[in-house]
């Protein structure tokens, strides 16, 4: 049985790879946009202006409360219907994944920044460092260390969540697998393949996150 399954997978590899490229493109675009957005909004969480803080909080809570899949359908159907637009599955996917990733990242960034003791700021200023020097040499390196394990963890979660885009019609690796199942009726090897595939994509990141946590214990 295993031989047949491997043969099946090999025969259909081009199709699966085609889907995988789609998956990885969406994941990469969303991760980059999301992490950038998250950094900016993370700092906005600590702004002096309560309007900015509230806006950031509403954004964070919106994605904390409503599941990503619901947002995907809102972006894919409700918004185009309401505003008479055309949004492709890929665009909706990247949009929502970036926004969701950004929300989660902003919380990590805020946590990282607030966990740095006040003493660091005071000491830096007492030593006569300018604000820019203070942030570049003292605050940001420490913030990054506290941030990185969680951020790597978030990237893993974003890659996993990319599997949802099949539900809004994106022909990603999951969809390609389903098309092959339709033709060959071999559900078990193909879903097993997807299982292993995502594990291969995410496990190295998980190891990295653990290694970082050990290297920079808080």
């Amino acid at each position: 049985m295993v031989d047949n399954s491997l043969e099946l997978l090999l025969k259909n590899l081009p199709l699966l790879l085609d889907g995988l490229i789609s998956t990885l493109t969406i994941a990469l675009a969303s991760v980059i946009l999301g992490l950038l957005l998250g950094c900016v909004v993370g700092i906005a969480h600590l702004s002096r202006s309560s309007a900015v803080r509230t806006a950031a909080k509403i954004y964070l809570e919106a994605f904390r409360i409503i599941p990503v899949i619901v947002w995907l359908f809102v972006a894919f159907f409700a918004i185009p219907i309401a505003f008479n637009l055309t949004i492709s599955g890929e665009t909706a996917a990247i949009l929502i994944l970036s926004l969701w990733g950004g929300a989660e990242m902003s919380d990590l960034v805020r946590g990282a920044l607030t966990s740095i003791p006040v003493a660091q700021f005071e000491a830096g200023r007492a030593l006569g460092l300018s604000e820019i020097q203070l942030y570049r040499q003292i605050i940001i390196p420490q913030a990054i260390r506290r941030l990185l394990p969680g951020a790597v963890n978030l990237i893993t979660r974003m890659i996993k969540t990319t599997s949802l885009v099949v539900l809004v019609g994106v022909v990603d690796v999951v969809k390609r697998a389903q098309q092959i199942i339709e033709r060959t009726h071999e559900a078990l090897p193909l879903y097993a393949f997807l299982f292993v595939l995502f594990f291969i994509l995410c496990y190295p990141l998980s190891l990295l996150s653990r290694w970082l946590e050990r290297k920079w214990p808080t």
Partner: protein
Amino acid sequence: MKIQRQNFFLPTLALFGALALLTYLGCTKKTADSLSSIRARGELVIGVFGDKPPFGYIDQAGRNVGFDVALARELGRALLGDEKKVKFVTLEAANRVAFLQANKVDIILANFTNTPERAQVVDFAEPYMRAALGVIVPNDSPLKTLADLKGHTLVVDKGTTAESYFVKNYPDIELLRFDQNTEAFQALKDRRGAALSHDNMLLFAWNNGNPGFRLIESNLGNADVIAPAVKKGNTELLQWTNEQIVRLRKEGFFRRAYESELRPHFGSSIKDPSTVLVEPST
């Protein structure tokens, strides 16, 4: 402690603005899609099934094939001169209307049955096929008639006429609803339901490849027709599609497509194509 930063309002706004801009660029505003805008775009976007052989499915090379797909390619050839200028978007039964409402496709050629409820939200063109419902059970099933289904689970595909038929007329029969065609048939094979209901022709075709089953109903519901659908209000495209269907009927296209795409799958269940196709009214 709080980092006091006031001046991140603008960068935040800027980033959100950038995201909005990116999304805007990723979208296109759709006006009532005239033929000229489709020609300008250079491709005709058609929604088809990707998992409903022999009407719309994916072959070994990942290409869209099937009866509906053949019609789609012909329409592309007629409008843009090249059948390769058709962009296929695979969809599910449940989101066919939503895809039209949300401007994702120009035409739906996905075994779309013309019903009064649907006609309220989309515009149907001239029909090209007849449809009725059927119910299929495993060969060793004790069920013989529709009445026997009471107390059993019926598998349906979400958004099909089969689903709405049973929701309306037999609310006591428990339904197991799936998003995709493949999943519904897999569930039947896995014995998750006692029976499955779908378009009769689809069941004939599937039964041909899966002999362990038999139909207990093959002409249920209204004698409906299957037609292309466009977004409501898209009169220019609708008119053009009507003209094409009428022309193709006269030219015998549907007969030819039946022979190449459907007959190999129907086996002995359907003898006369005219029971399936909508013939030209001469």
